[in-house]
């Protein structure tokens, strides 16, 4: 039997068995028909619960203590379930009465359960005020208050991390976006609290989930602007953004350069280009004009002979399709960087007329440019003065006519003047 029931009614139950409990009148009738009053404060707690559920009377047809114990324990279990969540206890499905297992005879019966079709009062904000004297040890109150005040950021991060773990364990079918946002927030909070190593560890642990977080602009800006890495922290910091696709970072830069994350996006891109230049070269060679223009500035140091033909094709295309001198200039620079001697040779074809055998065998692509394109190219090339460029100007002088020839002449003189001075 539950301890409290035994304790409360020990005397009565041992001497005389209980016949009936009137929950409304707080009266117990014993087997000799004597009656005693009880108080809910001192009575077996199951009586409060049964009354709360709407019962007003309990009849006992047995004095078998084992049977009463089974019933009492079941009622207290219902009470615990109810306390955990008052909305979920299905009162109709609870076994409030106790029956004999063999004969099916009722041993304990509870009466007066209010009709389930109860018409509720209008729900109103009518709650009792809490103005009774507070009977709690002031030290306990102070300790509780301090617990709220002294929540450390580490505790908070630990709490979010814990929620994250539980969330994943409990809801594997959750929207991956929510999951990744939670991961991103946890990392951002860590960074905001200068816990770079923790943030980096978390990003490594959850790099797959984190992938979706970059779709959320607000969170991406938060993550990027949360921490300003020192030079020696750059690698660890950049590692957090490992799953942030390089192409997306580039387009993010173009749209959010003026945001508070702007300086860090530049820092991240700079780091990425240095460490992953091959992939950036790929992006540059196959990207649109805006991306190319941005990346060409960063990539100038990384062009190699193996990129040469692709750059030449891009330069040729740029000359044909745009008047953007900056863009042309960047491509010229890239071409010279990648394979200078070959570049100077091939660039001559922008000017010389097609040889008769080239047309015949079609072994080489015709690279010759129109006058405007030639002018743009020469302007770009003149930005990179050197002895071999001067030689180049001198060589192509014979292949250009009219105003353009004058311009080439001016460029040569200007270069010679510069070198003399």
């Amino acid at each position, binding site marked *: 039997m539950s301890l409290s029931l035994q304790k409360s009614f020990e005397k009565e139950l041992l001497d005389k068995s209980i016949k009936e409990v009137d929950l409304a009148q707080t009266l117990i009738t014993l087997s000799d028909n004597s009656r005693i009053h009880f108080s809910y404060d001192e009575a077996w707690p199951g009586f409060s619960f049964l009354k709360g559920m709407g019962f007003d009377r309990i009849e006992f047809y047995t004095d078998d203590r084992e049977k009463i114990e089974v019933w009492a324990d079941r009622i207290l279990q219902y009470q615990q379930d109810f306390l955990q969540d008052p909305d979920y206890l299905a009162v109709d499905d609870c076994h409030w009465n106790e029956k004999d297992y063999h004969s099916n005879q009722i041993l304990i019966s509870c009466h007066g359960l209010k009709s389930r079709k109860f018409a509720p009062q209008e729900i109103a904000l009518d709650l*009792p005020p809490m103005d009774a004297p507070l009977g709690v040890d002031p030290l306990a109150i102070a300790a509780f208050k301090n617990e709220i005040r002294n929540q450390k950021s580490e505790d908070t991060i630990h709490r979010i991390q814990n929620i994250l*773990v539980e969330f994943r364990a409990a809801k594997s079918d959750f929207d991956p976006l929510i999951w990744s946002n939670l991961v991103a*927030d946890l990392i951002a909070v860590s960074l905001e609290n200068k816990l770079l190593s923790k943030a980096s560890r978390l990003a490594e642990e959850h790099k797959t989930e984190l992938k979706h977080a970059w779709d959320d602009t607000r969170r991406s800006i938060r993550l990027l602007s949360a921490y300003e890495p020192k030079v020696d922290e750059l690698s660890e910091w950049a590692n957090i953004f490992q799953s942030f696709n390089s192409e997306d970072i580039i387009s993010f830069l173009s749209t959010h350069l003026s945001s508070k994350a702007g300086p860090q996006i530049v820092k991240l891109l700079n780091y990425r280009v240095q460490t992953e230049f091959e992939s950036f070269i790929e992006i540059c060679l196959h990207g649109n004009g805006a991306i190319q223009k941005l990346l060409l500035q960063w990539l100038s140091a990384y062009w190699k002979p193996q990129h040469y033909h692709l750059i030449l094709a891009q330069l040729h295309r740029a000359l044909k399709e745009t008047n953007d001198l900056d863009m042309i200039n960047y491509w010229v620079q890239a071409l010279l960087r990648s394979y200078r001697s070959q570049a100077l040779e091939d660039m001559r074809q922008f000017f010389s007329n097609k040889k008769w055998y080239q047309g015949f065998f079609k072994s080489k692509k015709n690279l010759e440019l129109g006058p405007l394109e030639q002018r743009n190219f020469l302007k770009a090339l003149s930005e990179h003065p050197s002895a071999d460029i001067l030689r180049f100007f001198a060589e192509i002088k014979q292949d250009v006519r009219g105003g353009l020839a004058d311009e080439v002449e001016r460029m040569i003189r200007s270069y010679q003047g510069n070198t003399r001075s």
Partner: protein
Amino acid sequence: MNPRIVKDIQSIFVCNLNEFENELNALSLIRKYDEYTYLHCLNVARLSVMLGRRFELDDPDLVDLGWAALLHDLGKLHVPIHILNKVKKFSPEELAIMQSHPLESLAAFVKLQPVTIDTINRLSAAFEHHQRFDLKGYPVVQRKLNLHPFSRIVSVADTFDAMTTDRIYQRRILPDLALRIMSQGFGTIFDPIVLQAFITSMGAYPVGSLVRLSDQRLGFVTGYGKNSRVDRPYLRIMENGISVEEMDLMDDRHSGLRIMHSEFPEDHELEGKFQSWK
């Protein structure tokens, strides 16, 4: 901003609502979805903030606590309305959906706004308010981390309000009886300090209770004095629907009297009587 919601919140705590636009929107979604859940959230917030005041929390903490309580059931927006208001027993699937609401609250919070050091308090209460003090509730947790203090407050307020509110399928439990039943969760379901503070500041018979005295007279509990015992409040004795006497049970003249139990005012045609005096 919905003026009704603004008024409801301002009756509980004071804050600059412009700073809580996301939270306000979420609350208005709850109200649109289910009026009972909305009113329940308001009640839980009111009780939580009252309790927070008894703990002498600072104003910013009270605001945080208030919002934590107001949005603790946000995840119920994801529970189909026919399940939310179901009268009969839940099927296992329905129960699983109902019990997923703390996780859904968490998800909704994450959607609503980025988690920060400041918002984690609100988030914790939504996620933890059914986890029980001994962490044996739901959602089932693998890592045992003590409940956030706000979760412990909201959990007590949530249970009390659910028990003392009339539902279509269940008459409310009288407040004093609800407190007695709740005391059986002391240290297991509820934080003992929070529950003790809640019960003692409500009083054994909360203000507004209609009580039966040992001399069989009926009276409304009207308040507690500074030196009142939790079971000996001020009363207004009622006879034939009329208040006939005011009484302080701490007074020596009434030392022979005691409160037997509480009763429903509507069973004596006294509903609304107490409210009319306020």
